[in-house]
């Protein structure tokens, strides 16, 4: 993966959020993403970090967003929904592969 600059690398938070967006193909928005991560990992992310991460992923082009329909239970406000872009998929794979390769490498034994 020599094509990865460090801009393309994903942080843990970004990976978690991306995976959550993939797991919620029809209804990925800030609240459901946070719930998804908490219910599967037990990690309760701060609201601020969820939004900032989504904002960053959006700017990097890893997710695409659109405004949903306003509903009454949301006080007549629309959701901002997300789905992962092919670039986001690639970044996720790349990050995972990089970690795997590092993990498989054996430390060089020194001579005694």
């Amino acid at each position, binding site marked *: 993966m020599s094509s990865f600059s460090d801009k393309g690398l994903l942080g843990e938070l970004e990976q978690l959020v991306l995976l959550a967006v993939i797991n919620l193909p029809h209804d990925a928005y800030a609240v459901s993403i946070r719930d998804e991560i908490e219910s599967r990992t037990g990690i309760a992310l701060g609201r601020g970090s969820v939004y900032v991460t989504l904002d960053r992923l959006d700017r990097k082009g890893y997710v695409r967003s659109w405004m949903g329909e306003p509903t009454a*239970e*949301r*006080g007549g406000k629309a959701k901002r929904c997300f789905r992962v872009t092919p670039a986001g998929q690639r970044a996720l794979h790349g990050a995972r592969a990089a970690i795997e390769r590092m993990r498989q490498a054996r430390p060089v034994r020194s001579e005694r």
Partner: protein
Amino acid sequence: MTAGRWLVARLVPAEWRESVLGDLEEEQRRRHAQGRRAGSIWFLIAALPIVLALGRSRWRRTERPRLSAPFSGVLLDIRISMRALRSSPGFTLVAVVVLTLGLGITTAIFSVVDAVLLRRLPFEDADTLVAVGEISTTRPVSAPAYVGSVAAPNYQDWLRQQTVFESMGAAVIARGFVVRDGAEPEDLNAIRATASLFDVLRIRPALGGLFTAAEEVSGRDAVVLIGHHLWERRFAADPGIVGKTLTVDSGTFRIIGVLPPGFTYPAQLTRPIDVVAPYVVPERERVRNRNVTGRNYTLRAVARLKPGVSVEQARAEIARITAGLAREFPDWFEDQASAVYAWHDTVVGRSRGWMQLLLGAIGCILLIACANIANLMLARGTGRSRELFVRAALGASRWRLARSIVVESLLLTGLGLVAAVLAASWGVGVLRASMPGNIPRLATVNLDLRVLLVAAAAAIVTGLICGLAPALQLSRPDVARELRDGARAGHSRRRERLRSALVVVEVALATLLLVGAGLFTDSFRRLVSMELGLDPRHVVTASINPRLAAVSDAAFDAARRETTIVVDRLLEEWRARPEVEAVAAVSGGSPLSGNWRTNSITVPAKPEFTAEIDQVQIRQVTPGYLDVVRVPLRRGRYIRADDTAGAPLVVVVNEEVVRRFFDGRDPVGTFVRIDDADRTIVGVVGNVRLRGPEVAVSPEAYLPMAQFPSIGGTLLVRAKEDVSGVEAMLRASVLRALPGVPVVSTTLEQSLRTMTASRRFNMLLVGLVGVVAVLIAVIGIYGVMAYAVLQRTREIGVRMALGAKPLGVVALVLGRASWLMAIGLACGLAGAWALAGSVEAFLFGVTARDPSVFGAVSVALFAAGLVAAAVPARRAARVDPIRALRAE
């Protein structure tokens, strides 16, 4: 719109705004459905991190507006300073510790002093209140603290003729308010006040109403206001209390209201007022009679100035009215004058000198701390001058350089301030816990932020000036040359001299404070180790006070006989108990209670009688008394059981009587006349400081209680070992034997502690001040010596390369430190000598120029200074010459 929604709408970028609001709304509804709290506060708390996160991310992306030029890069400066402070932890730690001690402890001490002594009186517009009273012209001192009570006719004339006061009120301490219903009988703290007193002090009742002038008439005066504390204590804060009655010895009163919490008058009283009843001018005080002995000075008067009237004008007016009265009734004013002072001054007047002393000490601490900060900043500036030169050479403006120093010293002071606040609040807690309970207004002690601010401002200003000095010098020197001579750069003689001078000042001030602390500690040590002449350990006392108001002589005699019989029976019962060693009763003032009674004594061998001098304190005692308190017998015998009413009248005197009235000759067998009866001296006992260790020994006479009956008194029980439990038992058995008589029980040791309480408090404060001063000064010495060594590393390296021994290097450093300390000590001791007069009044058993205190302080301070200098000295001795020379 709630705050949270407003924040989101204002600060979240447009592309997020609607969805964030919707998300939060959705979550809020969900929480509501789960039955959890989710109000506008929840919304705000949930929205805040989102607003911060998204707002910041936008801030980063968009072009930031430039700060105006002089302040661009301040954040960078802060980051650089933080890094610099972290990289020299020693300097940072020393500076923060100095600031913590200097600001924190002084603030704590001042907070306590302020609350106890300085705080404004707890009344509305207390600045316009004045104490109006009479003052004896025979008294040598005329000060606010000695404004006395007013005679009722004078008060009324002042009230009628004055034009300077908006209102004027007065009160007398009232007796006979003993409640005997319910559980324990209690002697209530009562005053009788004019209705106008409420106007003057602007008192509004917590419940019910106040009485009016219409009730200041005999027969209509059976109404009372009760204190808030009494209401809670005795009436369980009954909201329907108004209209109920309170029955005490002097009658039955209708309760018309409850006073606001904490009300007390006169202000010197430490115990809150329980009862206020209307003041009725006694019949015989309505007109001035020619009989001067009928003068009765009972009224404590206070007035509120009319707007625009000064205390001086009021004083002049009252003096004018009094002069008019004096022409009419010369007998009444030949030795009395009027006095008008700001009420606050009359309350804190007595402690003013002590306050000034403490404030001076606190100021010294602050000065030491500032000198220390100055020193540290100067040293640091010197150390950094190379860095500054480099930056200047690279084109940094003077302003930029100065600003980085400003930022650093502000950062440092901020750090110190945080630690100081913590230290101060901790200190206030400790002081509050260690103060004796009888110090007034203890509960109101809180951290005083004003002092902290003043102290912090002083520290910041010092830090800035001393930090900036090196940077501002930069415009002058030749940058290139300075850089070339880098290794020795900044070692300017002038600055070094300044720093040495600062150390000298610090040591001098610390010496001054330590001498003060030493004197106070020594006073206290002498005080508590003072021979009292009696043994207060294991003695429990119970004072019985059957105060009977308005009864006939016959009834009084009957009550006295009855009490005597009961007391005898009690003594008998207690003498038989296994845990008791001895029991007795005394009347006329329990030892260490602060009460005493005097009587004239006429000695046949020394006939001339002078009322001032020939007075003895008399006490009526039962036979076991001198055994219980362990007063040693010098000659003759103690009072015995056979000194009954019918037997020859006898008296036992103390050694002071022998010294004063018999020129040391053996008086046993001599007659003296006390209370109009000739009595034979049968014994001489040791002197006892019954009124506490500070009061000089008085002549005393002990009379058998059987031959000089009295009503009430104090039972004393000496327990074999531990007094715990005995006090409660004694109290209970007195209450059983004398139902309806108020009992106050304590132990002699407790009484002694109460008597020495204010001294212990003073010693604690001054001791703390001294210790802090020395700590800061020692830190200062350490800091300066450490920097000096660091700076002279190259020089020391050269010396060692040339053959100087490590010991010689140590001597070099220590010698310099000793020299500075010696000068500082000399100045400090000289100062202490000069200021001796201002502390003399607060000392006990030691003069303000006590050589042993001066000596001990010099040795202690010098030793501490040497220890502080020893650390850098050791470092100097370990300098590796090769590395020192190669370093630059």
